[in-house]
């Protein structure tokens, strides 16, 4: 019995870390727009899936269907508020992510990001283009652009299956069986 199932079990155990099964939502704020995507840990994106954004009171802010890449986007709420984005695959997988109000920064980010980067040098004869507020907004946009890939990576690392965890689960089960056999042996 054990000899028969062990190869099968081992094959599954080593295939385990590659693929997994849980829906997650990644969401971030960029240029005054909340955007993100829904993905299965290790198993692709949730495409053509309804999503819904709500504020803390439960009122709908935006809703729609993810595109072929599982992405969604909607304008940041004004005034800034906590937003919870829920993705439901309509077959039992539901996941959500919350963007805190502080991530939406303020109005200036959106307006500045649209105008693009200011000219490299000061324009002759013109008033200084870059006020403190605009500079802050620009820095925020730039940092966001740089940090986003990292945040995605952290999200994926965080939910990665680790071989050590899979193995410890399997051996915990075998250990339980050993305890059961031992307890039965003692009673006799």
């Amino acid at each position, binding site marked *: 019995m054990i000899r028969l199932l062990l190869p099968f079990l081992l094959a599954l155990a080593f295939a385990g870390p590659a693929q*997994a099964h849980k829906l997650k939502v990644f969401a971030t704020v960029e240029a005054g727009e909340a955007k993100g995507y829904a993905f299965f840990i290790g198993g692709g994106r949730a495409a053509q899936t309804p999503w819904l954004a709500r504020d803390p009171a439960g009122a709908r802010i935006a809703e729609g269907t993810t595109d072929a890449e599982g992405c969604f986007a909607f304008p940041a709420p004004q005034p800034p508020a906590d937003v919870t984005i829920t993705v439901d695959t*309509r*077959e*039992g997988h539901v996941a959500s992510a919350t963007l805190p109000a502080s991530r939406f920064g303020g109005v200036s980010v959106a307006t500045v990001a649209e105008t693009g980067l200011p000219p490299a040098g000061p324009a002759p004869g013109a008033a200084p283009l870059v006020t403190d507020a605009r500079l802050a907004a620009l820095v925020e946009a730039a940092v966001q652009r740089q940090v986003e890939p990292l945040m995605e990576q952290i999200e994926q690392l965080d939910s990665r299956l680790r071989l050590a965890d899979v193995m410890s689960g399997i051996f*915990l089960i075998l250990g339980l069986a050993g305890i059961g056999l031992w307890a039965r042996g003692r009673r006799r």
Partner: protein
Amino acid sequence: MAHIPDGILSAPVLIGGGVVAAAGVALGLRRLDDRMIPRTAILAAAFFAGSLVAVPVGPASVHLLLAALMGIMLGTATFPAVLVALLLQALLFGFGGLTTLGINTVNIALPGVVFGMMLGPVIRATERPALRFAAGALAGALAVLGTGGLVALSLWMSSSDYTPVASVVIATYLPLALGEAFVTAAIVSFLARVQPDALRPVAP
């Protein structure tokens, strides 16, 4: 899919699932003897590892459940096997949740036990490999569809927000049912050839 997370189901569904699961586990534990304990542990480990391997299908992703195989090989001992594996998946990987442990156990184990009981006698008694293969495949497919139905039912009973759409459920569960049918039939046929005793949860 079969791992319903915390915070979606309503309290009556959670409690009902917990009660049914507890009854099933109690039935199953009474069945465990020296012969069954290692087998239960190995199938629990196979289910634990097997349901971590997901394959994307359509808008979702699916994984093997092995419920029918457990139902045929373990009988009611399927309940404790599934419970332990789901508990570890929830604790180690955050799949499913602790409050939904009972209802998830029922959703996965119950169809396996039921179809294992219905088709098990045919699989054990028949002399014809083709019939055994067909019965194994049928048990595998029906158990998956049963799980799909129970998951949909538990979501529907809890809240209208997350009610699954029938067409999407069928689109994702049908390929899984076919895969599961093949895997169950192949393992059952193999065991019947090399170790027929492994298909009997009760010692002859």
